[in-house]
């Protein structure tokens, strides 16, 4: 029992960064921007969040600076991909490499350390007990008492769903992905909408990265996103960008990541459990494409 609760708790924690990044990617998914820079946006977010927290001593500033970091990557991406007409994939890959190199370099120059920055000056995101939920037995042990950003993430998912499917902005945004010319012919700039969607994805990925470095733990390790941006990309595809759907898919990924961590604690060689989320990604994409093909063949 206790073990299962532990696994479920850790799956939520592991799911949130992926959910946030894929939520960001959902916006670009709908505007038909091939956003492979999710990984880089997350990494910069994770790094700057730790830096922000380290120097100001405030987790809130950390979150803010992390989100801004993602935004900056988004601005560069939009500048090249939307306004200068560069290839989305090449631009995204360049930014990913820049993120790895830039964060590692800065970490080493600034602190003179290799590997990970661990310090008591880094303030993590505090946990929060939800007043009503914390009264329900069993469930409270799974859901309540998480870093407070978990609840913000859920709120953001609800807000994004509303924005995408209930507002005029959502109507326009989804139309851009289907046929940008239609909007241009109506006098609505599709470029602007594409740019905004990229900036939005930057902020959300930066936030997701910040959660990774300040939510679970309070440290930054080189390349600590370790492919979560790519997992997010497949989450978006499997859930077709539906906000609640991608939360669900993220939770599945989170579950396997959590399972992996718990298995590590049980003395299994750590490399095996670490593989699990990536194997699941391959399986998920495979199952998804099989389903797609079956729909097409029917």
């Amino acid at each position, binding site marked *: 029992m206790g073990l299962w609760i532990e696994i479920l708790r850790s799956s939520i924690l592991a799911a949130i960064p992926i959910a946030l990044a894929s939520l960001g990617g959902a916006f670009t998914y709908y505007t038909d921007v091939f956003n492979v820079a999710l990984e880089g946006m997350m990494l910069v977010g994770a790094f700057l969040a730790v830096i922000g927290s380290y120097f100001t001593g405030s987790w809130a500033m950390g979150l803010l600076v992390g989100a801004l970091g993602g935004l900056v990557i988004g601005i560069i991406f939009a500048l090249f991909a939307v306004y200068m007409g560069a290839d989305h994939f090449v631009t995204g890959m360049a930014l990913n490499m820049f993120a790895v190199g830039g964060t590692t370099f800065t970490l080493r120059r600034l602190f003179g350390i290799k590997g990970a920055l661990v310090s008591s000056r880094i303030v993590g995101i505090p946990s929060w007990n939800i007043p009503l939920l914390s009264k329900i037995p069993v469930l409270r042990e799974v859901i309540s008492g998480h870093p407070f950003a978990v609840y913000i993430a859920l709120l953001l998912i609800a807000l994004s769903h509303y924005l995408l499917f209930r*507002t*005029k902005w959502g*109507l326009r945004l989804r139309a851009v992905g289907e*046929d940008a010319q*239609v*909007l241009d*012919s*109506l*006098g*609505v700039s599709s470029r602007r909408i594409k740019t905004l969607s990229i900036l939005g994805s930057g902020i959300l990925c930066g936030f997701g990265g910040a959660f990774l470095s300040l939510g679970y733990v309070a440290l930054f390790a080189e390349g600590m996103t370790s492919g979560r941006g790519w997992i997010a990309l497949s989450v978006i595809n499997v859930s077709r960008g539906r906000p609640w759907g991608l939360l669900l898919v993220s939770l599945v990924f989170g579950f396997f990541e959590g399972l992996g961590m718990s298995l590590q604690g049980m003395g299994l060689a750590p490399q095996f459990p670490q593989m699990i989320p990536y194997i699941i990604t391959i399986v998920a994409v495979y199952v998804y494409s099989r389903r797609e093909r079956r729909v097409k063949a029917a």
Partner: protein
Amino acid sequence: MHSDFIQMRSIVKVFQPATVALDGVSVDINQGEIHSVIGENGAGKSTLMKVLYGMVAPDSGEIYFKGQKVNFSSPRDAVKAGIGMIHQELMLIPSYTIWENVVLGAEPANRLGRLESKEARAQVQALVDEYDLGLSIDERVADVSVGARQKVEILKLLYRDIDTLIMDEPTAVLTPQEIRELFRWVSQAKAAGRTIIFISHKLAEVLEISDRITVMRRGKTITTVENKGLDKSFLARAMVGRDVVFSVSKPPQEPGQTILAAENLHYTDADGQKKLDGVSLKVRRGEIVGLAGVEGNGQFELVQALVGLIQPQQGSIKLKGQEIVPLPISKRRELMSYVPQDRKSWGSAQPLSLQENVIMTHHMTNTALQGRLRWMLSRRKTRQLANTIKEEFEVVVPNIDVPFFALSGGNQQRAIVGREFMLDNDLVILDQPTRGLDVASIEYIQERTLQKRADGQGILLISTDLDELFSLSDRILVMYRGQIVADLRPEETSPEEIGEYMLLGAKGGDNE
């Protein structure tokens, strides 16, 4: 009626590197008139209208609207001034419902941006009722006919309270009945005081509805005339710059033995839609079989099944007695010539040279092109073939090494038709062979097609242009919802009758 409603003065537009689309064009549009702008493809009609609509910035020239000099830098400005445009390719989001498409970009919403869908639906429904458009506003655009989609475009303009309406070739994809309905609506709009600019190259239509007509040729305005006592040949001469033969002559000819026999073809696509529902047809030697139908009724799938791009789930296709369903495309192409409807992405490889494009398929089937080694092509022989096609089919290019995309649409199509006709197969499938071409190229391709018929080859001609079907075909088949619902001789039927079959699948609505 104000005569200084819209004035376009000396408009020049050059598309880099060196295409002069508009060469000092001046046109006046009066308020409340139906003003047609006619000209061949490439004459600059669409570009001129895009300049007026703010989609294309002119290099020089001035536009006055209601006496004021205006400078529309985007369609938004034009829409604000009350000018709307219906484009040749409809500007709709297929997965959205009709009402969502209508309000898109001008949505009723509260201060938080929440879409007031109830209010939006009510407004759109009111317009549908008022103008008697007969649309159900909750249907997805992807699920409705082309005619209905055009009405959605009209609704978009009504919703935005547009009083000047530019329509770019609105009748190109409509059946005669739908055209009638469109014209009824256009006259109604004129009666309500709206100004309509109608772009077309179909002379009969232009003569029927216009108050005044402006003729354009090669980026210049040739003349603007009142529509009084004009006839087709006058307009055609102004448009083309020479006399035009309106109907190609088709000598009577008895068809020979059957070349193509398709039996009971069934095909259901990936979305579960039945596209071919028991199609059988025959094409005989020395016969042109025309295939009509509203787009999306299975003509496309039928051609794909014949060529081998899709596998029918049931049925047989016999070519000269041989069953070809199990054959791969490359084997089938040794037996049939095929001009696809999409010249750019299916009919050619745009970045490659003319030479490379015209030897395609020949390079697989024609062993005479081999070099000393069997698996190599002889450079000399392929160039020879390419030059022959260029000469024979009057492709106007400096040499055969120019990239294909540098050719005009008419020249591209001549090259593709030339390639396919040179294969010299007994069956020729022509899918929209003259769509979007200039008059001279249309005439030319139609004549070559009749030549093929005289040579005793069998031709299947798919076309949305009923005039073309009537002047070329020996029989006209009509497809409706995946079935062939009519098989008529052109001299015994009329475009109206064909139109009824296209729309209803039966004559006069009596479903047999």
